[in-house]
């Protein structure tokens, strides 16, 4: 065979592998780490899973801010458990990403140098205790809507990690809503605090469901790979429809004058989202972007001697054991 013939037959082989791969996904078969996969599938999954993991890790910071100042022991143990879950979720997801051939070290490097993104919601400040309520209720609520379809995604390790995450996440939302409920049944000042938190977190929560369908560059490919089962706009509508009645029970007002029940659509119409703000925050100009990265990188650097010491200790123990065997 000539060189060109070899090249052609290789291209043909890759095309047929790809067709077989797409057919497997269409049949709802799962893809496992050692299976053949198109390079783009691998890269897209590394990007999405690692960004998801980064979001869990950075997501601990806004809430960590309130652990020492929780108003009661009950609230404190719940918040601690929630933040610990987020660390766990980050670890499940990093492990899933590692099965695609990227190292943990490389992922941390991408996060710390700003190459990898994380959910932009965590670049907003948590200035009152009510923010813990609003985050649990709205941010975790939006996250659940994003995550439930991922339990059926085509990449096995990601789907399995998401099953665990989703199981644990529902307590997060309930603890947040309970905080809101308590404040709303409290003094007028406490209720005012809850309303203020809703005012600040409502729009960023809607943005969490991602750019509108006509602006979203990844939707089509992601739907094909079942990395997405519903479009951003569908998810956003679902979030609004289920959250508005919850706000009514709290006696709070959603900060959107255009919000209105649409009898014909059996859904809420809602106002224009400020996408300029969204892109500003994504690009690093949100109120807390710098602060979050400083805290994250600082924690990583201050922990370096601990990681090194643990490794040195493990190596020494191993050497001692080897010597005994001799």
């Amino acid at each position, binding site marked *: 065979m000539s060189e060109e013939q070899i090249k052609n037959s290789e291209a043909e082989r890759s095309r047929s592998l790809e067709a077989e791969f797409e057919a497997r996904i269409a049949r709802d078969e799962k893809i*496992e780490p*050692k*299976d*053949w996969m198109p390079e783009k599938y691998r890269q897209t999954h590394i990007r999405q899973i690692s960004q998801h993991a980064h979001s869990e890790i950075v997501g601990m910071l806004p809430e960590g801010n309130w652990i020492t100042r929780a108003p009661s022991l009950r609230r404190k143990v719940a918040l601690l*458990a929630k933040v*610990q*879950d987020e660390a*766990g979720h980050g*670890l*499940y997801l990093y*492990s*899933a990403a*590692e099965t695609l051939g990227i*190292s*943990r*070290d*490389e992922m941390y*490097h991408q996060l710390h140098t700003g190459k990898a993104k994380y959910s932009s919601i965590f670049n907003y400040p948590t200035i009152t205790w009510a923010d813990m309520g609003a985050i649990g209720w709205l941010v975790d609520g939006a996250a659940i809507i994003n995550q439930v379809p991922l339990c059926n995604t085509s990449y096995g390790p990601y789907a*399995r*990690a998401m099953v665990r995450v989703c199981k*644990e996440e529902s307590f997060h939302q309930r603890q947040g809503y309970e905080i809101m409920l308590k404040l709303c049944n409290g003094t007028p000042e406490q209720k005012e605090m809850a309303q203020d938190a809703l005012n600040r977190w409502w729009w960023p929560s809607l943005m969490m469901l991602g750019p509108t369908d006509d602006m979203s560059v990844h939707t089509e490919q992601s739907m094909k790979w079942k990395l997405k089962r519903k479009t951003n706009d569908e998810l956003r509508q679902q979030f609004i429809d289920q959250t508005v009645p919850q706000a009514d029970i709290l006696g709070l007002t959603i900060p959107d004058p255009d919000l209105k029940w649409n009898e014909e659509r059996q859904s809420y119409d809602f106002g224009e989202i400020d996408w300029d703000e969204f892109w500003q925050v994504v690009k690093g100009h949100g109120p807390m972007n710098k602060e979050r990265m400083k805290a994250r990188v600082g924690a990583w650097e201050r922990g370096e001697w601990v*990681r*090194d010491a*643990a*490794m040195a*200790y*493990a190596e020494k*123990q*191993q050497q001692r054991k080897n010597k005994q065997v001799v």
Partner: protein
Amino acid sequence: MSNKKNWPLWEVFVRSKNGLEHRHFGSLHAADAEMALENARDVYTRRNEGVSIWVVESKHITASNPEHNGELFEPAQDKVYRHPTFYDLPDDVKHM
């Protein structure tokens, strides 16, 4: 990225209750086996998911290659005589 030695990767297997086998739960990084067990407890059994944990360094696992699934698993496909339904027996025969 540092050139320093990173904590190796471990695979975690958990028995959710006595009577069931250990099942693969996921993986994590730890400096040694003892730390891997402790981390596995915190990462994978925060809600009573297990009564026993195994950890093994990932590099010690040898896995089959899915590209060789043909020669590996196909030989079992044409051996219907390994299944009870292959054998013709009259309906009158009971308890078999």
